[in-house]
């Protein structure tokens, strides 16, 4: 067997240039496949992370009626019980509760519908990281009736730091309530839609405006990692069965689907690249077989079995592919390792990207298992590509093959 492999290996290098061209194309093909996948996957993952961070959190707890009717009345009853449980939970990093009201924001220059989010600023730190997203101003401070709005909203209202805006909403009895707030901070969100949708005020300021007792509408929490979400969610569901406890992918199913879809997509892309490469390999090996007709005929004449001739061509194809495949994967790995930490700056196209909820700096990323999957695909592709040339070799008739001088 080892001599057969040795012959196969040396045969590859009989036509050095031809083999190098094929190997180089395999390297390039696999590398680009890995990189494109890393880029897309990274982009998607980032979008998921950022949406979770700025908007969804890992888990949200609401009143059971909230998802049907996000009305001011559908509050979380006795939220302290849940928050105190969560604050002591080892798998929970941060908890915050929020009042959510739909209303209108207006300035002298414009107005728009918004979701008014009443927060306790100090609790939001581990959750939304809103304070870090501020591009102007500060995160509330001590004075009352301060508001933080998004860049897109600021532009729409032509508001600056210090500008006065009015927010309007209704209470549970339908009474319209308005309050004047001073813009104290402007944040940059993952998307311009989100920047226009969400405005943040202090819970205590909202409570003062409302002439009624109100608890909160939402308890949001971040676990210690994505992989903990499911178990924490299950635990909460058992402990607090009368609440609606949803994980991020239940709140925003399209994000979860995008994740699953992406994985399938990645393999499809790599598969298409491999299919294209396999044609090159088949072509090269076919040439190698046909130009060695006489030699292969001689081998069969002197007693080399068909099985051995077949496996020799198989080994040649396999080694040709395995010269390029792992190098392409390795090159892809290092490219993703490098760009994954330094990021790829797409500021030129950032405006477009941002409106899709994507960050202008992309950090490519691929699961380690994908590299192994790709490696396996290379071997499968090599084996499949070898079948036709190897079969052609078997069809050679030793007599005709030798006697054509």
């Amino acid at each position, binding site marked *: 067997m080892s001599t057969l492999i040795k012959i196969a290996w040396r045969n590859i290098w009989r036509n050095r240039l031809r083999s190098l061209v094929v190997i180089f194309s395999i390297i390039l093909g696999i590398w680009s496949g890995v990189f494109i996948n890393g880029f897309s996957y990274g982009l998607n993952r980032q979008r998921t992370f950022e949406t979770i961070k700025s908007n969804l959190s890992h888990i949200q707890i609401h009143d059971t009626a909230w998802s049907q009717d996000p009305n001011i009345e559908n509050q979380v009853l006795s939220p302290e019980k849940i928050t105190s449980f969560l604050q002591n939970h080892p798998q929970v990093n941060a908890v915050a509760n929020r009042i959510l009201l739909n209303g209108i924001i207006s300035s002298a220059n414009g107005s728009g519908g918004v979701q008014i989010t009443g927060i306790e600023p100090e609790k939001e730190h581990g959750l939304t990281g809103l304070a870090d997203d501020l591009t102007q101003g500060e995160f509330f401070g001590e004075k009352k009736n301060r508001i933080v709005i998004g860049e897109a909203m600021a532009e729409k209202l032509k508001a600056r730091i210090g500008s006065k805006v009015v927010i309007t909403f209704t209470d549970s009895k339908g009474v319209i309530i308005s309050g004047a707030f001073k813009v104290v901070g402007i944040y940059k969100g993952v998307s311009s839609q989100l920047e226009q949708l969400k405005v943040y005020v202090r819970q205590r300021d909202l409570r003062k405006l409302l002439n009624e007792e109100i608890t909160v509408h939402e308890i949001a929490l971040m676990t210690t990692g994505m992989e903990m979400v499911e178990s924490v969610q299950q635990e909460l569901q058992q402990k607090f069965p009368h609440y609606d406890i949803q994980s991020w992918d239940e709140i925003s199913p399209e994000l979860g689907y995008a994740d699953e879809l992406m994985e399938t997509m990645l393999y499809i892309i790599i598969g298409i690249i491999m299919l294209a490469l396999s044609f090159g390999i088949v072509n090269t090996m076919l040439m190698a077989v046909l130009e060695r007709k006489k*030699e292969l005929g001689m081998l069969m004449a002197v007693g080399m079995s068909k099985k051995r001739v077949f496996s020799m061509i198989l080994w040649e194809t396999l080694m040709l592919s395995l010269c390029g495949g792992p190098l392409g994967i390795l090159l892809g790995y290092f490219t993703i390792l490098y760009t994954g930490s330094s990021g790829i700056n797409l500021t030129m196209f950032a405006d477009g990207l941002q409106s899709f909820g994507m960050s202008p700096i992309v950090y490519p990323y691929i699961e380690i298992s994908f590299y192994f999957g790709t490696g396996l695909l290379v071997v499968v592709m090599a084996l499949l590509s070898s079948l036709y040339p190897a079969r052609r070799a078997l069809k050679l008739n030793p007599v005709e093959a030798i006697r054509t001088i």
Partner: protein
Amino acid sequence: MPVIETHNLERVYQDGSQVIKAVDGIDLQIDEGEFTAIVGPSGSGKTTLLNLIGGLDKPTGGQVSIAGENISDLSDNQMINFRLEHIGFVFQAYNLIPVLTAVENVEFIMLLQKKSKVERRRRATQLLEAVGLGDRLDKKPGELSGGQQQRVAVARALASKPDFVLADEPTANLDSASTANLLDIMARLNREENMTFVFATHDQRVIDRAKRIITVEDGKIKSDVKVDH
């Protein structure tokens, strides 16, 4: 017992509507230790006869026996294995695997026979020394002259310890000195080891050395002469 025996051997080709009898009822017997040349002009059926004797082609009638075994009914795979164990081949060209050295080329046959590494190396070295290439063991075919390559081919043909060696125009591409040298070696192996050689040739230099000359014409044996040198 004869090494090669054919009975009423026939090989018919169909060329369109035309039926060509390349070998037409040949009865032949070649004994151990013979040094035989099969001669005849192109198209005489000499090569077809050689292919049938060498188990490279199947007869359409009659039968071929090698060392008492009828090979006409063997399957393709059985035939490959039979050739490996019983027949040594030397062709006109493309005899060697270009990526292997001389000694590896000779070893290759024994590798196919699943001989041990030590035995392979020992016998291959011995055979190459016998054909005068003891100092060229690690040269690849491309680094050897045409004559030297044919001598490696002879060593390779003998490596499997065959019943006979079939040489098809082995000197066609060689100059006189190389031809003489190659024929000397084969004659010596025939004399000293009693190895049977069968040539298909129209090279007079080979015919001159043969101890038996079988002339084929129109698929039939025209003459069969034994020569004393």
